[in-house]
């Protein structure tokens, strides 16, 4: 046994020496000293304070708004279609867990940004219904119905008295969501392939405090085999209670005094 070990060692040493000596990538070119380049440090702020022409300023602000709009609409979750059952239980291997943790870490940052934005928008609404109705009022000639036609002309045919955006703006909705997300402690033991939707109806006072909360599928809670539903519903109720009073928009009380929160744990539990 020792003979073969020493032979092996010898051959390995030979190989190592040979690689060092002969293979090209081992050779390195001598490092040449880099030329020093003189840099002048200029304060950028001085430059940007330059007075723009009024029209130019308008264009710049428009571009800024559109950028912000894009950020907001990315967050919008118009998931009206029912969620599909996952076909296979996905792999929770270490890599995936890490990326989820990273995602979770990222989420709170995004939410923070939205909160900041929502306070700004009390002054200047990003998605202002008045501005849109102003656009629409310009062309009242066509009167085709909205539900049937699905083309760009629709935007110009709307009756300006109908509320276009369900009572609150996207950013206001996101602000409410962000609060509830923080308060909702999802029970970890739930099965991931069941219907995990709990709908709670709330009535609010103008200051955002909750006067009543009601679980819509209340009867389901006590059905046999639906023990997990009861657990989920209770967790949603706790979330609502913990978040009471909610930070609601200062205007439009009539629009949001009745809220329905659809708690759906499927996304989080699917892993």
């Amino acid at each position, binding site marked *: *046994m020792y003979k*073969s070990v020493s032979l092996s060692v010898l*051959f*390995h040493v*030979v*190989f190592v020496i*040979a690689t060092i000596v002969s*293979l090209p990538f081992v050779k390195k070119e001598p490092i040449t000293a880099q030329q020093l380049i003189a840099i002048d440090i200029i304060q950028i702020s001085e430059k940007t304070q330059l007075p723009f022409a009024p029209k130019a300023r308008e264009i710049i602000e428009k571009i800024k708004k559109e950028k912000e709009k894009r950020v907001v609409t990315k967050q919008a979750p118009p998931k009206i279609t029912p969620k599909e059952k996952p076909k296979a239980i996905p792999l929770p291997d270490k890599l995936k867990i890490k990326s989820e943790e990273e995602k979770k870490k990222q989420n709170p940052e995004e939410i923070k940004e939205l909160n900041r934005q929502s306070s700004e928008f009390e002054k200047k609404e990003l998605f202002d219904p008045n501005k849109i109705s102003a656009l629409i009022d310009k062309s009242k000639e066509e009167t085709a119905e909205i539900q049937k036609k699905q083309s760009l002309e629709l935007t110009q045919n709307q009756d300006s008295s109908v509320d276009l955006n369900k009572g609150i703006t996207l950013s206001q909705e996101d602000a409410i969501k962000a609060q509830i997300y923080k308060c909702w402690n999802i029970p970890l033991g739930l099965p991931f392939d069941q219907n995990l939707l709990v709908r709670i109806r709330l009535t609010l006072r103008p200051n955002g405090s909750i006067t009543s909360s009601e679980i819509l599928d209340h009867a389901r809670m006590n059905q046999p085999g639906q023990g997990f539903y009861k657990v989920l519903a209770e967790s949603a109720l706790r979330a609502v209670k913990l978040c009471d009073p909610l930070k609601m928009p200062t205007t439009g009380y009539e629009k949001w005094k009745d809220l329905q929160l659809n708690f759906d744990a499927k996304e989080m539990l699917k892993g």
Partner: protein
Amino acid sequence: MLIKSLKNTFLVIALGILISACSTTATKKSAGGSDVYTGTDTVKYLATGVADRVFFGTNSKNLTSAAKATLDKQAAYIKSSKISVVIEGHADERGTREYNLALGERRANAVSDYLMSKGIAKSSIKVISYGKERPASKESSALAWSQNRRSVTVKSK
């Protein structure tokens, strides 16, 4: 430039061959499996020149030509001394416990069948499997595992 790259590829190939030749220490490629132990460490003797055990490849029950040679000597010895034997089947630790019990039994029976084919009476052979419970070598290494994949012939009391 071309000559240089040719020289380098030749060197790499040559060294590659050198290294692969280093990988075999005491195991050899053979008909039964690619990692059958062929050394003499852990081997005991029933009588002078009669080794008491044969070795197997991973998950295998095949008898190598070396194993058969050993078993021929065992058969001759058993016949001449008229003893009864117990054949123990063992497995290495790199498998599930229950399957290893079955594998040990399979190996012991492979040896028993061979001995019977050499004229040993069934009544003088008993078979027992120890799975991975009684390793011959305590280490956790490829060498130790190959030494543990064995079937041992023991004089019965």
